[in-house]
């Protein structure tokens, strides 16, 4: 991949990250309500895919929908206003972060796990009938690959030979559940078994994702039917802001005091055999320690990994992106800081 292309990708990644961090800040300040699922850590995946989209292409999004929208060029000020719940938000304050709708970009999100599959099928169907040569992509997590409607969508998309690319962002976790503990077989094989080509890529490297998506998307555009991309990545901020697992890691003593006592009482009470109890405790402990391990041992920030390819240029691009995004968010906030 040439330098210029990579710079563009990285620049988009930086924009997404900046927006996520701005949103996180607003959330921490209590200005955004409810759950906030950040897409920090998914930027390389999103950038690599979205770079191939053109006007008339559509995106079906999940509960981490801000990064693709930012990358696709949605109005930052309107997005920020929406997260803030304001009347001038992109959905007039009625959708919020899990339900962002941007008709001009043919992009819609939903908080129901797996629903971006059918939505993507519908977008792709409309493309094939009304906008030949245009495609749809759908984004979702690896946990969504166990949701029936997603599995049905894989079959339906192939059966109708639609211009749709399935992008599975595999961070290995669904909330606090390790996906491999509840998922059988390997996901790229699962997709292949539904009769479509399937690529596994390093989701920390925007260039690698870009390469795989290029093949998948151009194939779809040419009428070759759907494809599947599995991109391993991580969520730097856990499942959502205030993720209880991360809170345990950050304040083990305080949190453990809260959790520990009832836990000890439970173990001491009449119940299963000791073997079973130990197994139960083990699985609780394992979850926490795996999270801790993952965070300690691995450097999984795609901005670092992809940025390294660009050297100092990365810093520059990042600063640019940051100031652009911050200025837009500031516009959204302007005159309302006190609200």
């Amino acid at each position, binding site marked *: 991949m040439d330098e210029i292309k990579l710079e563009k990708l990285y620049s988009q990644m930086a924009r997404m990250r900046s927006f996520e961090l701005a949103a996180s800040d607003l959330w921490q300040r209590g200005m955004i309500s409810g759950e906030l699922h950040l897409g920090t850590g998914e930027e390389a995946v999103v950038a690599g895919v979205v770079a191939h989209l053109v006007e008339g292409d*559509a995106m*079906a999004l999940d509960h981490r929908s801000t990064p693709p929208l930012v990358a696709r060029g949605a109005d930052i000020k309107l997005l920020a206003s929406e997260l803030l719940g304001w009347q001038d*938000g*992109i*959905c*007039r*304050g*009625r*959708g919020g972060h899990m*339900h962002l*709708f941007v*008709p001009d970009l*043919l992009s*819609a999100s*939903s908080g*129901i796990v797996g*629903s971006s*599959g*059918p*939505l*993507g*099928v*519908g*977008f*792709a*169907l*409309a*493309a094939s*009938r*009304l*906008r030949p040569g245009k495609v*749809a992509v759908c984004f979702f997590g690896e946990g969504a690959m166990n949701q*029936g*409607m997603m599995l*049905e*969508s894989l*079959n*339906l998309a192939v*059966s*109708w030979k639609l211009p749709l690319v399935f992008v599975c962002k595999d961070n290995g976790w669904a909330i606090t559940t390790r996906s491999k503990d509840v998922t059988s077989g390997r996901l790229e094989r699962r997709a292949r078994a539904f009769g479509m080509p399937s690529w596994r890529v390093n989701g920390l490297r925007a260039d690698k994702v870009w390469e795989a998506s290029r093949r998948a998307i151009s194939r779809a555009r040419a009428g070759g039917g759907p494809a599947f991309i599995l991109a391993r990545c991580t969520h730097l901020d856990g499942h959502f802001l205030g993720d209880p697992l991360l809170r345990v890691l950050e304040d083990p003593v305080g949190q453990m005091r809260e959790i520990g006592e009832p836990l000890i009482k439970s173990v001491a009470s009449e119940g299963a055999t000791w073997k079973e109890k130990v197994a139960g405790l083990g699985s609780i402990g394992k979850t926490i320690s795996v999270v801790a391990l993952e965070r300690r041992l691995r450097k999984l920030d795609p901005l670092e990994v992809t940025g390294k390819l660009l050297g100092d240029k990365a810093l520059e691009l990042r600063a640019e992106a940051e100031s652009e995004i911050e200025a837009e968010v500031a516009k959204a906030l302007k005159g309302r800081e006190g609200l």
Partner: protein
Amino acid sequence: MRMTFSQAIEEAIAYAMAQDERVIVFGEDVHLLRMNLLARFGPQRVMNTPISESAFLGAAVGAAMAGLRPIVEVMLVDFIGVCLDALLNQAAKVEAFSGGRWRVPMVVRASCGGGYGDAGQHEQCLWGLLAGIPGLAVVVPSNPADACGLMLASILNNSPVVFLEHKLLSDYWLLYLGSGGRKNVSFDVPSDGAEGEVPLPLSAVPIGSAKVRRAGKDIAIITLGVSVHRALEAAEKLWGRGIEAEVIDLRSVSPLDSEAILSAAAKTRRVLVVDEDYLGFGLSGEVAAIISSSGIQSSFARIGPLQAIPYARHLEDEVLPGADDIFRAAFDLIQR
């Protein structure tokens, strides 16, 4: 022009498809169920699906958002349980969530209703459940003219509409699921419902408007679908006893025509709701609430199934509201 109920629906769809290229049809087995549409509009616009209701109903939402006007078929409304999310959390919420900026012009076509011995997983109505979801319209025609007019209105509507087609009125469904070509089984098919005049040129029947099928001053029987015909039969019998019953065909469950309901209640002061859907938490309650909230004093009764529809024909007949049941309930209410 005289048409059967199912012809009337097909006529409306064919008309809309000829007018507007964006109208497409998909669902299970539509290549034969909608053979005539397929032959006329080709396989790009009449598409078979796998048995994947969640995926294809959800796909209809996406297709409608992206410019098509899909008519998506869920064979029997009973199957909506496997794919309700596409209506509950997607189709019905896009307009609300997007602050009115994005709409979902789709029609869900499904057959409903019992009376042919297929038991409670295939004979439900579920219009109460569906009407309880804000953002969805639900229509239930009782005759060919309305079937045509409401289908046309549904296709032209810019928000999602569930169009329910009663199997006792649709000849081909009854042939498929009821008789299977046998001559030695019979069903209580309301002939004015299964066949009738459809005004030409085709025109839409507004969604949300009820129709007085028979005027009367003593009691208003408020109902829809096949029960309209049962109610008319009962009204005739009541007439024999000197009771003038008004029969209101709601035609739409959602939105409900409150005006029609209230004027009937104000006029007769006695309302009987006849429902083929489950009695509890559904249509009859909503009618009661509308009347009660209005302050109009009216006595009230309702009949309809309280349980899953049993298989045996005679047990099913006990559960589904028939003309005799209506007659008795109306008579009781008047005596009260």
